[in-house]
């Protein structure tokens, strides 16, 4: 019974979170967004006391059930472990205390000291998010694009095509390596990662040791056959001594079902002693699939550089990323510091950005945290998706009405690229598209009459009202480098 409930809940949660990362259309965000907000470390960062206390209380009641049904990385490992058909393959092993607490210590020190890369690499939900965002999302998008192609032929608008692009090679590599390591560990030893490395697992284990309900072994019924221990994916049942290490038990219920004598149960009674076992969820094999994705992504990124040409169309050069003195962080992130302190690099915002603006940073100190650039689109005034989704408080929630009044940077004009200067033609596309009217066109020749329609005009930016959305940079006809680009602000302001 316990096992069935656990598998049902885990399936719902796992599919939900995965879809949350995959759904680039944003339709499911309002339905599934809560799933990300339920994650322990993000909730802790977001100072979401209700969730943090709730999870701790849950753990004090039922043990580490969080790791079995809420954490997507945990569920993923169960799925991988379950793929291996070899029976009774686990065995009891002692707790690796020094390793566990050592990693937790490093993690906490890194969190306090703001060494984001260590926190990001270790936080389980973020690891999972990166895997889905970097490895699975491209496949999902390509499949979608196939459907879109079919829909186009059927004159349907049910599906639309989306750009698949490599946002950051480093993040892809890290996601792939993390996946391979965790997959191998899960294949060989079930919950090894959760019980030796995962800092959230270690934190919860402190509370789980003394949880009210535990899996207990009834020594009267137990014949010490060891079947429970051989099926415990957490390797936490010492069947000889009838002992269970509750700091590692994730309350999956496998042992309860395996035992032929009904000797194990989840109960308050301290007399019986508990067990836990292996076994997991439904779902298809992912590994080869995911690896193939990784390779395909890289290949596609190379291919997309070659723009297609038609007879009557001018060639369009790809835009290059300008050098920005200060990186731009999305509206709602308050400041570079707030972003650095709160973000766990889960990539949810990056996967959700419909305008191709967000991508993981490649800068070492903010590695994999979101940063913005405008070669593919700009931060559109009606869009607040990243702020709606962020579970950690790195991007705080902003309303649509506020969106266009948050200044995240300011536009800078680059004379040598500007069309009126280089080509001697009127342009003004930046001014025409500025949503706040921060750009005015003035004569290039300062003595010319501004009313003369034929005099060449160049853009000037009123930085007081510029919000740094990047419409000007994105739509500037100058290529590969725009004649106007956005410099980020370390601290956002409201205008």
């Amino acid at each position, binding site marked *: 019974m316990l096992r069935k409930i656990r598998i049902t809940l885990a399936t719902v949660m796992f599919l939900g979170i995965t879809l949350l990362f995959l759904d680039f259309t944003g339709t499911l965000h309002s339905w599934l967004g809560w799933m990300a907000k339920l994650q322990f470390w993000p909730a802790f960062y977001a100072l979401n006391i209700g969730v943090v206390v709730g999870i701790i209380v849950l753990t004090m009641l039922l043990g580490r059930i969080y790791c079995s049904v809420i954490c997507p990385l945990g569920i993923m490992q169960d799925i991988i472990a379950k793929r291996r058909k070899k029976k009774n393959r686990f065995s009891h092993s002692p707790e690796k205390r020094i390793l566990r607490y050592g990693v937790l210590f490093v993690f906490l020190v890194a969190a306090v000291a703001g060494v984001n890369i260590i926190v990001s690499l270790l936080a389980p939900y973020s690891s999972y998010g990166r895997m889905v965002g970097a490895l699975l999302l491209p496949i999902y998008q390509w499949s979608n694009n196939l459907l879109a192609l079919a829909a186009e032929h059927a004159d349907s608008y049910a599906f639309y095509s989306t750009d698949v692009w490599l946002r950051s090679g480093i993040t892809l590599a890290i996601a792939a390596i993390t996946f391979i390591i965790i997959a191998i560990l899960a294949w060989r030893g079930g919950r090894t990662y959760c019980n030796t490395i995962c800092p959230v697992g270690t934190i919860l284990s402190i509370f789980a040791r003394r949880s009210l309900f535990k899996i207990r072994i009834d020594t009267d019924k137990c014949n010490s056959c060891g079947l429970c221990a051989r099926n415990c994916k957490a390797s936490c049942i010492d069947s000889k001594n009838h002992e269970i290490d509750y700091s590692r038990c994730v309350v999956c219920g496998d042992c309860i079902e395996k035992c032929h004598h009904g000797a194990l149960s989840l109960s308050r009674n301290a007399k019986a002693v508990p067990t836990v076992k292996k076994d997991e969820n439904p779902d298809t094999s992912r590994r080869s699939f995911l690896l193939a994705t990784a390779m395909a992504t890289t290949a596609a990124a190379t291919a997309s550089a070659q723009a297609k040409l038609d007879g009557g169309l001018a060639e*369009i050069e790809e835009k290059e990323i300008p050098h920005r003195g200060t990186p731009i962080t999305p509206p709602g992130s308050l400041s570079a510091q707030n972003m650095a302190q709160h973000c766990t690099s889960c990539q949810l915002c990056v996967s959700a950005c419909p305008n191709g603006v967000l991508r993981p940073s490649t800068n070492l100190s903010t590695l994999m945290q979101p940063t913005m650039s405008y070669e593919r689109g700009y931060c*559109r*005034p009606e869009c607040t998706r990243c702020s709606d989704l962020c579970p950690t408080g790195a991007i705080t929630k902003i309303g649509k009405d506020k969106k266009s009044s948050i200044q995240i940077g300011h536009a800078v004009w680059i004379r040598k690229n500007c069309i009126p200067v280089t080509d001697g033609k009127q342009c003004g596309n930046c001014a025409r598209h500025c949503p706040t009217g921060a750009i005015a066109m003035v004569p290039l020749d300062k003595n010319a009459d501004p009313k003369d329609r034929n005099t060449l005009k160049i853009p000037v930016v009123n930085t007081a009202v510029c919000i740094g959305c990047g419409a000007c940079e994105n739509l500037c006809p100058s290529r590969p480098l725009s004649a106007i680009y956005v410099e980020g602000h370390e601290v956002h302001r409201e205008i």
Partner: protein
Amino acid sequence: MKTINRRDFLKIFSGGAVASSALLAACKEKDSNTSAARTSDKSLKPRGKMTVRTNNITGDKVSILGYGMMRLPVIGGASGRENSDADIDQEMVNRQVDYALEHGVNYFDTSPAYCQGRSESATGIALKRHKRDTYYIATKLSNFAPDTWSRAESIKMFENSLKYLQTDYVDYLLLHGIGMGDDALATFNSRYIDNGILDWLVEQKKKGRIRNLGFSYHGDVKIYDMLLKWHDEGKYKWDFVQIELNYLDWSYADEINPRNTDANYLYEELRKRKIPAVIMEPLLGGRLANLPTYIAKKLKQQRPEDSVASWAFRYAGTPEGVLTVLSGMTYMEHLQENVATYSPLEPITKDEDKMLMSIADEIYNLKTIPCNECNYCMPCPYGLNIPAIFSHFNKCINDGVMPNRGTKDPEYEKHRRAYLVGYDRSVPKLRQADHCIGCGQCNEHCPQRINIPKEMQRIDQFTEEVRRYSDKI
């Protein structure tokens, strides 16, 4: 004086006011009831006396401008409709009502439902300061929440209206929003007929507590026809009817929303029966005051000193059978401008009517671009696919699937998606209209003499508006 002006100016803008061009122009001159007289903004200056229409049934002399009390100002700017938490700015309401009465406005239209139920009492407070026989009050038996539909609750609603309005009779009482609801007939019956409340209202009319009994109509035209048939049969006589009328709804209402009916039909039906028409939505929810610049320019070219909104008001007031045109005026500038437009009303001429009809076409983007895809303009040096852009735009017009926000198009979301997805399908993003820099190199090659950059910018503006506005997200 200067400080007051600036403060009010800021108040209006920080409150997220609708920045119609008229308002902008008006902001520097305001405050006190006489500022309109001092301004040199002619769109705020009355040239004579307010036009008055006579109710052919009661002989009431009603001003062509009626004051709609739905968007009353609140403290901190904006109106009680957008900012529902803030308190009504009673002082401002009083001042505006004073200005209105002083300049001949004598019809005040409220409802128990407006401003979260605060409109009637605010109206009552402002009007109580004037003699009861100098103005007409219109209010409604509203029908929004089904728990107010019982006979007892309905009677209470009417009695409360009298209490809040501090009067013992209502000049114009309306059954509110006839034709709404998924099943309009069922809604109408359970609201007004089954509980016998319509008969009760007729009794009140006999007692003199209601002087004119009518209804306001939105939606299902079957109910409209049914009520007018009752009028013909003598079952119930309607003293007036309130309908939507503006130069978009005149003949486009049903094209935009199949559940709407063209205003010309509604109006003509009333005209035949000599029932006075009260007009609502002359600006289509403010949309006709806030036109894209390329359209506003055409109106300005005809009458440079008049506001864009004034055209809509003149249009709505022109038909002879119109008793009054309601405008929900939040700001003093709105009021001054509308008073000026109607003092006196200059009826729309035949030529102007024609122009407005063509502008309605443009607003609804129903004008195709005469491109026949000869490709002479290509290649555009900035990479645009000009013929493909025109072709997508024309196709949406010809298929009747342009996403238009007017008249609450129920299909808007569907059309919006089709327009945007279809645009990306037929023209790659980097070749779309937003990349036109306006160099004009294409123009001389076009055998159709299309002003290509101008059309590109029009399509771009339209697309941008469609991108930004969604009911979802």
